[in-house]
């Protein structure tokens, strides 16, 4: 079997001399010549393609090796330079993806032991924290929730609530996607809502060209509804849990009661961030309708057909109620006990409950979760902590301030806007969790250096990491809706910049006007 497969491998295959196609039959190209040519080329080409496909890996490694040979700049220790170099290399590899991303995580682990000389036990311990437990647990919960097939119930609720006008349906999809994504993670919601939107689109017309604008409005209602909501609660996304972990790691001192404010609990986060999600909601629908202007103002026929389809699924079953009940308990656990048990423990407990009751099989969780990504987040957080410990984060923060100070960006609103813009730029090129893991240590040290509140700057960083509206890869929800085949990459740019402007303005206004009112 293995030999047979090897024989079919394009890289090991040569032209079959017996294969005389019409061109060869007419004397065009000797088969012997072709065989020699093809035997020589694949080996060379294989190496060439291998090198070319991994060119960014080699470039990153060469740049990293050169930087490590340089003397550290003033104010930066050699360990700090090493950590910064590792971060730079990791960012290049995150963005360009020349090797599997879990391999980047493993390189970070190995690099900490070999290049920084940290004991491997210490590095191994730094890989697991409540933030990582939360990421692990929430992914397991996500699979469990998707497997309950509650999407048809949600669809029924939306079309009952909104009626048949396109604008109302878009608003309803954004609202429901947002409300759900604010507590269970945007990838879960996008995966559940995608069939709802596509069913509506395909019931409107079979020809994708006739429904291009309608499809854009409905699909972006899901992805942007999810994106703006993920900031609402700590459980809305990995980025939030990572920032909560950084606040604790960087600023909490058990011997100093004043630093207890850096132990941010679920309710505090909701008080500061949930209103920002809610005020963005109507703007999402307005921007989408204004940008795409769908021809279909009413979707009565599609909605009627969808209702018939949904009704065929029958009434809710007992297991549906149990699943909703378990998730509600998890939510109560996050709100009531996350400051004592930790967000991660509650998420893990919820996932275990789904398994114990038999609502989801371990095989489903095992195949539904990409475990390598959990490792990647763990390694990125571990590297972030090293940035703090070696002083690299502070050095970058001071350097950033030295560059932007002449422009009048030293503190207050200009600095907030600069942090938001920087985070938005980074998050559009990589996942928002990775963006916060990489940028968090720098922006928190920037807050300290500029005399700003690390909490305020931390919230701005975490919230701005949700502004990944411009690219397909910015957020999982964008990736999922793009996979439908109805959207172009240019659609993300067309509407995304408007979303970025709207979200940034509302964030800065909230930081300036609202947060002081609630004690930040």
């Amino acid at each position, binding site marked *: 079997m293995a030999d047979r497969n090897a024989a079919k491998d394009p890289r090991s295959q040569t032209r079959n001399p017996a294969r005389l196609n019409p061109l060869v039959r007419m004397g*065009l190209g000797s088969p012997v010549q072709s065989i020699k040519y093809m035997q020589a080329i694949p080996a060379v080409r294989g190496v060439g393609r291998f090198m070319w496909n991994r060119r960014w890996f080699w470039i990153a490694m060469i740049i990293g090796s050169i930087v490590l040979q340089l003397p550290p700049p003033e104010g930066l220790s050699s360990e700090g330079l090493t950590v910064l170099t590792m971060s730079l290399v990791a960012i290049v590899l995150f963005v360009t993806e020349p090797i599997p991303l879990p391999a980047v995580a493993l390189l970070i682990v190995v690099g900490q032991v070999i290049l920084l000389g940290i004991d491997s036990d210490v590095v191994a311990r730094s890989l697991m924290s409540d933030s990582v437990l939360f990421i692990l647990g929430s992914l397991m919960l996500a699979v469990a929730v998707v497997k309950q097939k509650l999407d048809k119930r949600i669809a029924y609720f939306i079309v009952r609530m909104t009626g048949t006008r396109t604008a109302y349906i878009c608003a309803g999809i954004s609202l429901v996607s947002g409300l759900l994504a604010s507590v269970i993670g945007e*990838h879960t919601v996008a995966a559940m809502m995608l069939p709802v939107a596509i069913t509506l689109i395909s019931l409107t017309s079979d020809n994708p060209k006739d429904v291009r604008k309608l499809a854009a409005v409905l699909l972006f209602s899901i992805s942007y509804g999810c994106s703006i909501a993920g900031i609402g609660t700590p459980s809305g996304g990995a980025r939030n849990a990572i920032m909560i972990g950084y606040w604790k790691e960087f600023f909490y001192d058990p011997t100093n009661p004043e630093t207890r404010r850096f132990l941010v609990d679920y309710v505090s986060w909701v008080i500061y961030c949930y209103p920002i999600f809610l005020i963005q909601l109507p703007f999402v629908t307005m921007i989408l309708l204004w940008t795409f202007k769908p021809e279909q103002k009413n979707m009565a026929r599609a909605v009627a057909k969808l209702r018939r389809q949904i009704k065929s699924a029958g009434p809710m079953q007992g297991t549906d109620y149990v699943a909703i009940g378990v998730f509600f308990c998890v939510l109560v656990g996050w709100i009531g006990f996350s400051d004592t048990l930790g967000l991660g423990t509650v998420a893990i407990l919820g996932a275990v409950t789904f398994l114990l009751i038999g609502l989801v099989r371990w095989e489903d969780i095992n195949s539904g*979760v990409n475990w390598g990504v959990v490792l990647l987040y763990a390694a990125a957080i571990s590297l972030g902590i090293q940035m703090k410990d070696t002083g690299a984060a502070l050095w970058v923060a001071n350097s950033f301030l030295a560059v932007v100070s002449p422009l009048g960006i030293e503190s207050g609103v200009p600095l907030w806007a600069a942090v938001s813009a920087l985070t938005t730029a980074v998050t559009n090129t990589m996942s928002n969790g990775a963006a916060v893991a990489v940028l968090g240590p720098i922006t928190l040290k920037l807050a300290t250096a500029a005399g700003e509140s690390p909490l305020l700057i931390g919230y701005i960083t975490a919230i701005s990491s949700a502004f990944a509206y411009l690219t397909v890869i910015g957020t999982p929800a964008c990736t*999922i809706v793009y996979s439908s085949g109805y959207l172009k990459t240019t659609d993300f740019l067309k509407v995304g910049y408007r979303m970025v402007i709207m979200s940034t303005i509302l964030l800065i206004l909230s930081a300036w006007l609202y947060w002081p009112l609630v004690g930040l």
Partner: protein
Amino acid sequence: MTDKAQNDYDQASASDETTAERFSILVCTDGSDESFAALKYAVRIGSGTDADLTLLYIRPMDQGLRMAGLQASLARENMLNWGLELPGTKALRRARDRLVELEWLSVDWEQTITHKSVAGDPLGDNVTTYTSKEGRSIALKLHVATTIAEGILDECERGNYDLTIIAKSEDDDAAGPGHIHPETADRVALEHSGTVLVTRALEESHGHLVCVTDEESSIRAARRDAVIAARCMCPVYLLSVASEEEGRETAARAIAAAKSEIEAAGIRPSGEIIVIGDPITEIVEEGKKYSVIVLSPDASRSRWRRFFSKTTTIEVLKRAHNSVMVVR
């Protein structure tokens, strides 16, 4: 996957001895209008009973971080549970329907379906093959690959096709993860070791403009193209460009050699053109009047070398307003 299923898959996905005498065409599709125009042209080239057609849609492999740790297959499963088609399936189904409309495929053809999971992705590689009583076959392939270009190149090598057709959709008409970007089409044309036709704004009836030089490979390529053009009754015109007036004689020699070679294959060229000027500009400008500009490769397929070099084939592929065929 069982050994039997694996064997079935291999038999369906790779060319075998039974097709050794046949002309095989690979058409890469992404569901765009351009790719359907390319399919129509493939049908024209494949007229007769000795041609087999393969339609290929490549879906890029899922990338874990983009989904923040949740497998994308979960979202796809959900769509399938709703009875919805995935983009690749939809594009291939539309292409199959188009073949039925063109009377190249009929309902009485024998159908076989094979599947192979790839890198743990249950959707994996899928092949549906239709075979007529006369032995003609049409394969619809939905493959998973790290990138679309890699997937197409692998299939090109695996299938050993006589002609690969890939559409270059400048207006970004198609959408979705399987969309073939213009850069991908160019990369396949330059890196594949076989003949590649990159279609763009394809108008079928204006003939092939074959660009020749006095190099042997160019003359051979002219003959190869003439044979392909003859399959679809397309007229062939010969063009040679001299950079300066002194080169006119060499250009004339190249035309004469190509003409002789083509006539030896029993085909008569419909016209001969010699122009003086910059080869790239002249080929692109003159080529506007024809359906396809035909070139033989003049550069290494290595991306490292192409990164540093500027050659006629690369520049014509980039700048041409119509279809370009790189003949090998």
